[in-house]
C-alpha cells in the first residue's frame, strides 16, 4: 500500500511536469501576437506555479522552514522590483534578472555536487557545465547591468591580448573540469576547493567577456546572456535529472539565441565580431578620411513647426536618445497633434535601436502609442520617397547613410532606416558630438537635413507648444 502511494505521487509529479512544459510552450506560442501575449504570459506563469507546487510534494523534502524563508524573501524582492522599475530602466532589470537565473542554477549545481558522493561522469559533467555557464551568466550580467546603469563606462574597454587571456581562462577551466569529472585530487584536495576554483574562474571569464563590449552592442549581449541563463537551467536539469528544467531551459536558450542572431543581422556583424572586437578599435582609422563634409543647417522650432504643419506623412525614428531624455510621452503627444492635423504618422523602429531588443517598442507602448503604427525598416524603406518629414529622435548609427554608401565605414553593410531619402529630415540632437559608435554621420550634412539642437524632450515640447498655440 505504501509502495503504491509512493508510485502514485511520483507519477502525479511527473505528469504535472509534463503539463507545466505544455503550459510554457503554449505561453510562448501566444507571445506571437500582441492580442494574446498577456494570456500567454499568464499560462506560462501558471505552468511555473504548478511545477513549484508539485515539487513541494517530493518526499525528499523533510523541512519546509528554509524553503518558506527563501520563497518569501525572493517573492517580495521580485514583486518590489517588478512594480517599481521604470520602463526606461528595463534593460538594466532584464540584465540583472538574467544574472539571478545564472547564479541560482550555479547554486543548485553546487549543492548537488557537495551532497552526493561518487557521482558518475555524466552527472559530474552536467554539474561542471551548470557551474560554468551559471557563473559566466552571473558575472557577465552584473557587468552588463553596471554598463547599462552607467556605474561602469559604456565605452568598449579593450586591451592587447584580450582573446589570448580569454582562451587561457577557458583552457584552465576545462582542465579544472577534467579534474572534477575524472581525476579527483590532481591539484586540489577536496570537493570544495575544486568547486570554488571553478566558480571563481567562471566569474572572471564572465567579466572578461562582457567588459570589452560597448554600450551600443548591449542588445546582443543581453540577448546572449538571456540564452545562457536558459542553458544554465537546462544543465541543472541534467544534474537533477528533471525533464521540466531541460524543456524550459532549452526554450529559453533557443529564444535568446534567436534574438542574438536577429540583433547581429541587424548590425551586419557576426557574433564573434561583437564579442571579441569591440567597436571602438575600428573607428579611428576611418573617421579622419572625410573631415570636410559640408555645412550643418540648424532649424528653429517655429520653422520646424511650419514644415510639419504642411506635411501629410511623418515618420518618427526613435533611438536611445529618446529613452535618455524620457521623451516618449511628449513624442506621442506630438504624433497625435500631427494626426489631428491630417498627417499620417508612423514610427520606424530599427531592431538594435536602444539598449535591448524591443526597447523602443516598450517605451512607445508605455506612452500609449498604438503598436500597429510601429513599422520595421524593411517595410518603410521602399516607401521612404513618399515621406514628407522624417523626425530622427535620439537615433544616430541606425540612420547613418555611410552604411550604404561608404565602403570604408565600420558600419558598412548594416541595414539602416534610409531617412536621407525622405523629402525633409529633422535630426533632434543634443550637439554635433558623434554617436555611440563614435562614427561621423554624413546624414547631418545632407541638403535635405535640418538639425534641431537641444534636449529631445525640450525640442519636441516646443513643437507641441507651437501646435497648440
Amino acid at each position: 500500500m505504501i509502495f503504491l502511494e509512493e508510485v502514485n505521487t511520483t507519477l502525479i509529479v511527473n505528469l504535472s511536469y509534463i503539463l507545466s512544459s505544455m503550459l510554457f510552450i503554449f505561453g510562448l506560442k501566444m507571445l506571437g501576437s500582441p492580442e494574446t501575449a498577456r494570456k500567454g504570459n499568464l499560462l506560462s506563469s501558471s505552468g511555473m506555479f504548478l511545477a513549484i507546487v508539485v515539487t513541494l510534494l517530493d518526499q525528499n523534502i523533510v523541512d519546509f522552514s528554509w524553503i518558506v524563508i527563501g520563497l518569501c524573501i525572493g517573492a517580495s524582492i521580485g514583486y518590489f522590483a517588478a512594480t517599481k522599475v521604470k520602463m526606461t530602466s528595463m534593460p538594466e532589470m532584464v540584465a540583472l534578472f538574467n544574472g539571478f537565473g545564472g547564479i541560482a542554477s550555479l547554486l543548485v549545481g553546487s549543492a548537488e555536487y557537495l551532497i552526493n558522493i561518487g557521482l558518475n561522469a555524466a552527472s559530474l559533467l552536467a554539474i561542471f557545465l551548470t557551474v560554468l555557464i551559471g557563473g559566466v551568466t552571473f558575472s557577465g550580467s552584473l557587468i552588463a547591468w553596471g554598463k547599462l546603469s552607467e556605474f561602469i563606462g559604456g565605452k568598449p574597454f579593450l586591451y592587447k591580448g584580450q582573446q589570448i587571456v580569454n582562451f587561457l581562462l577557458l583552457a584552465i577551466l576545462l582542465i579544472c573540469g577534467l579534474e572534477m569529472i575524472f581525476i579527483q585530487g590532481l591539484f586540489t584536495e577536496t570537493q570544495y576547493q575544486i568547486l570554488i576554483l571553478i566558480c571563481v574562474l567562471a566569474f572572471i571569464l564572465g567579466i572578461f567577456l562582457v567588459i570589452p563590449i560597448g554600450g551600443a552592442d548591449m542588445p546582443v549581449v543581453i540577448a546572449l546572456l538571456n540564452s545562457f541563463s536558459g542553458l544554465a537551467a537546462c544543465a541543472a536539469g541534467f544534474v537533477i535529472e528533471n525533464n521540466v528544467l531541460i524543456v524550459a531551459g532549452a526554450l529559453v536558450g533557443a529564444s535568446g539565441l534567436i534574438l542574438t542572431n536577429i540583433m547581429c543581422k541587424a548590425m551586419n556583424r557576426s557574433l564573434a565580431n561583437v564579442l571579441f572586437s569591440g567597436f571602438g578599435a575600428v573607428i579611428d582609422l576611418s573617421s579622419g578620411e572625410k573631415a570636410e563634409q559640408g555645412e550643418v543647417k540648424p532649424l528653429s522650432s517655429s520653422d520646424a513647426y511650419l514644415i510639419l504643419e504642411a506635411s501629410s506623412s511623418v515618420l518618427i525614428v526613435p533611438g536611445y536618445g529618446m529613452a535618455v531624455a524620457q521623451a516618449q510621452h511628449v513624442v506621442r503627444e506630438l504624433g497625435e497633434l500631427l494626426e489631428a492635423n491630417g498627417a499620417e504618422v508612423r514610427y520606424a523602429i530599427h531592431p538594435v535601436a536602444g539598449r535591448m531588443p524591443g526597447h523602443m517598442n516598450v517605451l512607445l507602448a508605455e506612452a500609449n502609442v498604438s503598436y500597429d503604427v510601429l513599422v520595421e525598416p524593411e517595410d518603410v524603406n521602399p516607401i521612404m520617397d513618399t515621406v514628407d518629414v522624417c523626425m530622427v529622435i535620439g537615433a544616430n548609427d541606425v540612420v547613418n547613410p555611410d552604411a550604404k554608401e561608404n565602403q570604408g565605414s565600420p558600419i558598412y553593410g548594416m541595414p539602416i532606416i534610409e531617412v536621407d531619402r525622405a523629402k525633409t529630415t529633422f535630426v533632434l540632437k543634443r550637439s554635433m558630438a558623434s554617436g555611440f559608435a563614435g562614427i561621423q554621420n554624413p546624414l547631418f550634412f545632407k541638403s535635405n537635413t535640418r538639425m534641431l539642437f537641444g534636449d529631445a524632450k525640450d525640442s519636441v515640447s516646443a513643437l507641441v507648444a507651437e501646435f497648440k498655440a
Partner: protein
Amino acid sequence: METEITLLLFVLVLSIFLGFELISKVPSTLHTPLMSGANAISGITLVGALLASGAGFLSQPITVLLGTAAVIFATINVVGGYLVTNRMLSMFKKKDVE
C-alpha cells in the same frame, strides 16, 4: 543510467527545435516582453533549488544554505519576471478601440 541520459538528451534536442520554431514567430514589437518572460521561465531552476533547500538543515547544512540562496534568486526571477512582463504587455494596445 545510460538510457536515462539518452532520454534526457532526446528531450533536450526536441525542445531546442521546438524553441526555435516558437520564437521565430514572435514579432519584434514583443521582443522585450519575450526576453523578460523567457527570463521568468529560466527561473524553473527553482525546482532544483526547492529540493536542495528542503534537504534538512541538521543533516545537510551546506546544501540547505546553498539551496535557500538559490531559492531566493530563482524566486526573484520567477515573480519579478512574470510580473514585469505582465506590466509591459498590459501597455501594448491598439488604439482603434477608443
